[in-house]
């Protein structure tokens, strides 16, 4: 059963007298454990689609189902509840809380979800170790490099064991080495935890890792490559010459 189902999603932004159609009848499904990229040029509607899937925004028309539940008409607190429990976010600018250290940033979603102190500590330390930041737990964001900050953000997105992590241009502010490292970490965690990852990106480095790519053009799905089984995707990474799908 899909974890996210989108039916005929429309979204138009109005700035003054000007109307911009961001999404124009998008219908898509996302399965558990996916590692997919929504790609397209600037203004194609990728970020808007991600925000609607993540219950940060509402469509003007259409239905969004999350884990078989229609979330389109939920109120602000009900959507917050979903974000706190089943959706993880990774943002382009890392979006860490500057006054909290790495440990506290990662711990925050667990606090919001009401996880007990002992379990909170275990899971926070486990995630920081998984992203290779065990030795930086008490560093604040301004004491970390861009790559380290994005790894904290990855840990924060995954610590609550969400159904899906939505990542908006996660490598846009990272150099090549850090971008690759971040993608490798996310790929590894996807395989280990089974959490689905959906990226909005125009970075070829991300597309290279994705097992499925959805091309958006002018708010419409132009191409939708079929998902690749995890094993095949791993094989294709090991043998880049093989066709992926």
């Amino acid at each position: 059963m899909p974890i996210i189902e989108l039916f005929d999603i429309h979204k138009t932004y109005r700035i003054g007298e000007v109307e911009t159609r961001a999404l124009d009848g998008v219908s898509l499904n996302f399965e558990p454990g996916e590692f997919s990229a929504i790609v397209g040029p600037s203004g194609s509607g990728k970020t808007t689609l991600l925000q609607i899937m993540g219950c940060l925004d509402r469509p003007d028309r259409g239905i969004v189902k999350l884990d078989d539940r229609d979330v389109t008409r939920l109120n602000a607190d009900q959507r917050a509840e979903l974000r706190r429990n089943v959706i993880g976010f990774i943002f382009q600018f890392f979006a860490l809380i500057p006054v909290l250290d790495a440990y506290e940033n990662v711990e925050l979603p667990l606090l919001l979800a009401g996880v007990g102190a002992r379990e909170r500590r275990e899971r926070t330390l486990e995630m920081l170790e998984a992203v290779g930041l065990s030795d930086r737990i008490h560093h604040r964001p301004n004491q970390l490099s861009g790559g380290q900050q994005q790894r904290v953000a990855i840990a924060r997105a995954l610590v609550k064991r969400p159904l899906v992590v939505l990542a908006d241009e996660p490598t846009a502010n990272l150099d090549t080495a850090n971008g690759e490292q971040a993608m490798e970490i996310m790929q590894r965690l996807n395989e280990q935890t089974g959490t689905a990852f959906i990226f909005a990106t125009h970075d070829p480095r991300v597309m290279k890792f994705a097992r499925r790519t959805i091309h958006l053009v002018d708010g419409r799905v132009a191409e939708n490559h079929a998902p690749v089984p995890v094993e095949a995707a791993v094989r294709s990474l090991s043998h880049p010459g093989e066709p992926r799908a």
Partner: protein
Amino acid sequence: MTRTKLWMIAYRGLTRNRRRTFFTMLAVALGLALLITLNGYISGVMEDGLQNSIRLQTGHVQVRAAGYPDGKHSVQWKDLIERPEEIAAQAMAMPEVRAAAPILWLDAVLSTGEESVGLQVYGIDVNSPLHDPLRASVIAGAFLEATDRSGVLMGGRLAQSLNLKVGDTVPLVTINANGEPVEAPFVIRGLFSSGVLVYDESVLFMPLARAQSFALTGNRASAVMIELHRREDADKVAVALAQPGLQTFTWRDLNAFILQSMDAAFSFYILMDAIVIMIVAVIIANTLLMAVFERVREIGILAALGMKRLEILLMVLYEAAIIALAGVVVGIALGLLGVFFLTQNGFVLGEMATTAGNLPISNVVYARFAPDLFTWLAVWTFLIALLASLYPAWFAARLEPVRALHTE
């Protein structure tokens, strides 16, 4: 989310701009310190006026003849108490009473040849402890003797204005019990300074027996004045001394005008307090609103992570609570320091003290610790500050996460 963590995030939020947080806290602290000091001082002025009136004019309880006119002096026999010593002795037998003695009030005119001044003459039992404060306030010459037939005690300020000194003889004129004007010479035995300028300018003391003979009142007195150990016992003592043909008054009855004036003055100061507290509240609201504007994106992140509107609202309110609480604690400390300084050093009013109408204010007034009043001010400062922070908190809670996240 645990409240503790919300408090921690709120606290961290405040530490990001320490200077602004400090100055906001300082504004709360100084506002409250000002209020506490001012109210401590005003409270001191009011209490000083009331105490002076009780000490110098009314006592805690008075017993008068039933017919004694209200608001003016009379030496007609029908208006006077016949055996005042018996009532004084009866009062003195009560454990609540510290001192009791008869007093005779006369209106008189003193002439120096160059000018005449209207005075109140108090015929007093000079041996009564009731007049110990007066005895202690003699600044020149000597206190009166009970058997002195011609001596008077004059305010130093009046003597100075009339160019008189100890040993000088002055003629006094009064209307006696028969309604006839009588005149007699008196010698200034001593000068006093009560600390209340109005009083020092208008009152003359002489022994009770001499006042009675001067006004032909026999052994009658205008009133028996009673001083208590605790003024709260006034009603009890007044009731105990009540009997047909007499009327009793407590210090509240006798100082009704002063008490009303105090109430009116306090109403005015409450308005001033409210204005200062409002200014402090606006400062806090402004600071928090700036803090919210500065981290709209951060609030968007918290919302994206699943923080609910109520939690965001509480987070901002907690920031306000921390600033307000710190400000209130520092403000109380500074305010008490200010009040303490004014309880030790006082504030010299000088001539200003004479302009306070019927309130006999000392020329040096000291502040007074008024714990109830200070607590009230601190609690209201805290509550109003929190109330003012509701708007910034509401603003933060209403931010749409998707818009907040895209704010630079």
